[in-house]
């Protein structure tokens, strides 16, 4: 699936390996395996885990982080760090809570508004990074702080109400089984697969892998980087929208927890933090793993005081495992 679409760019030298080995050892496949293992553990300790209700809840919990991680992936692939994710999520959450719009039409306008906020922030980031060539981590730190400030200006303390339609419908299911949030995540993944076919999509990998080589091959580095930040910003907007649907209220600091988790999800999904390798779908599943892990630890009876210790070690092990698996397969293929 996604993995095979990414692979040709990822490894030029691996032509001899069969396609399925590549697909199996890609970041997305490994993190999916991790997700399945975690889910099995969860089902073992929590019999209700297999019900559609629990699954919907899991998807709803993971959706905001998954979509934000998807956005961050665009920037990380092009070799950058985007800290503005925390700011945009806070800002859109506050936007949703202070100006709720009822009904499906209102929800659509809200969604467009969130995307627009993200796009504006992304444009500013793109301008600072691609045109002025400021360091990504520092420039987006600045925009993140500005967004956090604006969120505080709009809503100085947690409060407000997200439109009922948004908070009920978007956390519900279609035909009683398919979580709506899951459909939105799927839509993001689908858009990504389409985007991969475009020149800009390929350009993101090229720029992330070797900026000078990309430039010499005629890729417009400025445009690609700009597109990555704007696309990322819009996805953060959608993430803020989904978070609002889930929490049903506003909090000017709603985005702060996303800052670290988003990068964890991206790395867990097999995307190299130094750019050029990985994919968006891995990040989405990675986000799912992070959220699922909390449930698994809870149902496994780990005191909430100590869940962090497990999370930290799982993160390290997952990264090591993701590196070890391809080597194992490579060794097997050579024999």
């Amino acid at each position, binding site marked *: 699936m996604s993995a095979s679409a990414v692979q040709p760019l990822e490894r030029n030298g691996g032509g001899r390996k069969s396609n399925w080995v590549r697909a199996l050892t890609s970041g997305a496949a490994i993190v999916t395996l991790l997700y399945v293992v975690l889910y099995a553990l969860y089902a073992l300790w929590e019999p209700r885990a297999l019900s559609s209700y629990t699954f919907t809840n899991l998807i709803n919990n993971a959706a905001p982080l998954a979509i934000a991680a998807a956005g961050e992936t665009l920037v990380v692939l092009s070799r950058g760090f985007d800290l503005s994710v925390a700011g945009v999520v806070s800002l859109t959450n506050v936007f949703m809570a202070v100006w709720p719009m009822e009904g499906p039409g209102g929800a659509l306008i809200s969604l467009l508004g969130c995307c627009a906020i993200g796009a504006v922030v992304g444009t500013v980031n793109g301008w600072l990074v691609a045109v002025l060539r*400021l*360091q990504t981590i520092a420039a987006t*730190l600045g925009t993140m*702080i500005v967004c956090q400030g604006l969120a505080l200006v709009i809503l100085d303390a947690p409060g407000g109400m997200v439109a009922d339609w948004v908070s009920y419908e978007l956390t519900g299911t279609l035909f009683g089984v398919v979580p709506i949030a899951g459909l939105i995540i799927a839509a993001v993944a689908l858009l990504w697969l389409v985007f991969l076919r475009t020149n800009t999509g390929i350009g993101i990998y090229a720029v992330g892998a070797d900026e000078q080589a990309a*430039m010499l091959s005629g890729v417009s580095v400025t445009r690609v980087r700009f597109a990555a930040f704007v696309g990322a910003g819009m996805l953060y907007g959608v993430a803020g929208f989904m978070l609002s649907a889930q929490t049903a209220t506003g909090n000017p600091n709603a985005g702060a927890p996303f800052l*670290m988790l988003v990068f964890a999800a991206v790395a867990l999904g097999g995307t190299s933090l130094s750019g050029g390798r990985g994919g968006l779908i891995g990040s989405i599943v990675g986000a799912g793993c992070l959220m699922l892990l909390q449930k698994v630890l809870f149902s496994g009876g780990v005191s909430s005081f100590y869940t*962090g210790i497990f999370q*930290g*070690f799982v993160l390290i092990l997952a990264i090591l495992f993701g590196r070890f698996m391809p080597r194992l397969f490579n060794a097997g293929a050579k024999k």
Partner: protein
Amino acid sequence: MSVSEPKGAAFQASADLRRGGGISRETTNAIIVFGLSILLILGSRFVSPALGSWSQVLTVLMLASFLIVLSFGQGLVILVGGLDLSIPAVITLGGVLATGWAGGGGDWYVLPAILAICGLVGAFNGFGVTVLKIPPFIMTMATSIILASAALGYTSGTPRGASPAAMTALMKTTWVGIPVVVYFVLLFVLAGWLLQSRTVFGRKLYAIGANDQAARVAGVAIGPVTTQAYVVSAICAGFVGMMLVGYANGATLRMGDNYLLPSIAAVVIGGSSILGGRGSFIGTVGGAVLLTTLGTVIAAIGLEQGWRTVIEGGIIVAALFFMREEFFARLRRPKRS
């Protein structure tokens, strides 16, 4: 800008920037940040007559002391091309242990022992980054999550105890009208500068950050030296935890949270490359002083919290913008192997 210029220069660690005359660029950078700080303090007189005084300068230096110590460690890690996200958790660790083990008084060896424990945390980071080859971002974040959880469990949610006597003395007493901590910070800056710019250890850090392959060929033991940078960073963070305890006379579990991003911002505003190999501690000190000045001046303006935050973010971007011209003047020189 000519076409032949590497467009991504901003993203590439550039060893070449250090070639000849690199110091002057760093000096210029430091002068810009210090200049901005002084302008801010002088300008703040227009905001409120209470500002811009000698006592405000002392307050700024005192408040900046936390950030200066922290960003020294963060700066060394960034210099070798890493990033230390475990700083908030190590601050909390230092603070919680200091109040828990040495609250009120404490034997002379307790505080050094706590610093040694913090150093072990840094060694753990270094081990993950250099031996397990985990990206620094992920490794230090994992350490941070683990430590925060351990601190939560250890204190059952509420840290107890008061500040150790030595830290209270450092943070609360004055000598010849100047807080003792200001003298301490001046000495620290001198020592830090010597370590980073005038010792073999410092030169090795620059070499690794600029080009680790070349450094390896040149005989630098990459793993141990990189690990040492993380150890220094953790010790600095642990010490800041103790300083904060001395300042506030108690520890909280979230006491380090507000220091992570400023510690990175101070280093970057001070003119270092986030990708390593370039920067000076003096510039970082300038960045820390600028950020702290900014915080105190903005706090005094009397705007609501939201607008203050907006201005703070805007000034960070503006400061980066000012650095940029300087940055490009250097980049235009022919270079790159």
